[in-house]
């Protein structure tokens, strides 16, 4: 816990807090909304949990994307697979993540691996559906034109259909990333670390810690969202021309 610190006069707390023991003050008033002095003194506590959070989220997204993308390509080739795959990923998406974490306990135990498996399973539905719809929405005339220019099916897929589906794919990825970052806070329940450790447990009665951890989660989500938007702009230059 925070070592007690003495607040210099005239700082954030003003006269009321002058020369009071801030650590104790914050502890004594659990309903005190936000304790700036504790925050300033303890901000380094959030470093490791933030890194752990990323260590769960990034592998989960990468694995989820690779699987969902492969499934979407498969369903694009064999259309009859679309409905059953949509239903199967829908079930994974509907099972609440907390339940999912514990359902896997007998198989993969506590810790980061289970968190990564659950979160990547959770992203499948959104990424799969959007990639599939993106590919389905490519106009036939465009594909015919490509075929007329002598493109093989493989070339049509990688050089025509997928580039045109990028906005939908990224839209799905953005939803997946943002919700995964939020849900990863629950990984604390299976001892997988992350920012949830600063919200639940010993800190449950201390709002400042919960608020800081929550803010980091939301900023992380916002950051990744902006990053993906940038990727979309860079990978679809023709859309900018059209809009201009």
């Amino acid at each position, binding site marked *: 816990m925070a070592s007690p610190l003495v607040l210099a006069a005239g700082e954030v707390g003003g006269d009321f807090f002058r020369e009071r023991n801030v650590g104790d003050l914050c502890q004594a008033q659990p309903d005190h*909304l936000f304790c700036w002095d504790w925050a300033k003194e303890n901000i380094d506590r959030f470093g490791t949990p933030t890194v752990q959070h990323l260590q769960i989220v990034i592998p989960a997204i990468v694995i989820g994307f690779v699987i969902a993308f492969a499934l979407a390509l498969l369903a694009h080739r064999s259309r009859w697979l679309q409905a059953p795959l949509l239903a199967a990923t829908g079930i994974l998406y509907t*099972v609440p993540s907390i339940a999912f974490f514990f359902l896997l306990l007998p198989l993969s135990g506590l810790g980061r691996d289970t968190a990564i498996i659950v979160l990547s399973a959770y992203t499948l539905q959104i990424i799969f559906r959007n990639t599939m719809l993106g590919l389905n929405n490519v106009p036939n005339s465009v594909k015919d034109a490509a075929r007329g220019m002598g493109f093989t099916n493989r070339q049509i897929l990688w050089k025509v259909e997928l580039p045109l589906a990028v906005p939908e794919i990224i839209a799905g990825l953005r939803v997946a990333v943002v919700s995964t970052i939020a849900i990863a806070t629950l990984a604390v329940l299976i001892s997988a670390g992350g920012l949830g450790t600063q919200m639940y447990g010993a800190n449950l009665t201390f709002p400042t810690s919960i608020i800081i951890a929550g803010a980091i989660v939301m900023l992380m989500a916002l950051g990744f969202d902006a990053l993906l938007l940038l990727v979309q702009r860079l990978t679809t230059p023709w859309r900018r021309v059209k809009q201009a």
Partner: protein
Amino acid sequence: MTPSLPIASFTGAFEFIFTPQESNVTGGKKVGGFDKSLELVVKHLEVTVIALAIALIIALPLGLWLGHRGKGEQFAIGLGNAGRAIPELAVIALVAVLIGVGLHNVAPVLAILGVPPILNNAYVGVQQVDRSTVDAARGIGMGEMTIIRKVELPIAVPTVMGGIRSAAIAILATATIAPLAGVESLGDFILNRNVYGENGLLAGAILVALLALTIEGLLALLQRRLTSDGLKLKTV
């Protein structure tokens, strides 16, 4: 780090759901069993339904109205996106500390998680309705409220229901950690692992998963019933 749990088994979990089991800490009193499971299922549904009702009362009229007027797109869509970034654990932990424990404190806060998807989808659903359809309705003398109720809402049913389904699942999922804020739910089995043991933990997870799938299925069915036959033809 907590020490890793002994391996729980699915057979043990199913036994726990149907027949009361020994516990290490209750002094011989048995825990779990069908009656307790059913009681917690009902409590879980209770908090979910109340929170969903509050979310609907707030978000549905607002979303429909904004969509009808075609105003506040930034607000409706932005809120829908921002809502996904809210960490549920922080919400529940903060309620417990700042507002207080118990159903009357937790349900309204759980409702917050349901507002963004309902508002977002209600807005999008109504806003997508063909403007010429709306003009035709206005032309035959319908008032604005009648247009929303009799023209836009029926056409928007699939999208609106999609939002309600997302909201219901989000609230139901988060109700699992409601025991942290003093509201009984199936999460009790999961979070009080020293009382219910590893089989209780797994039983809780199974029941939450089944409940979520059941509710999702029922709402999907309701959506089919509410969607007019004409729209079904178009989407097939």
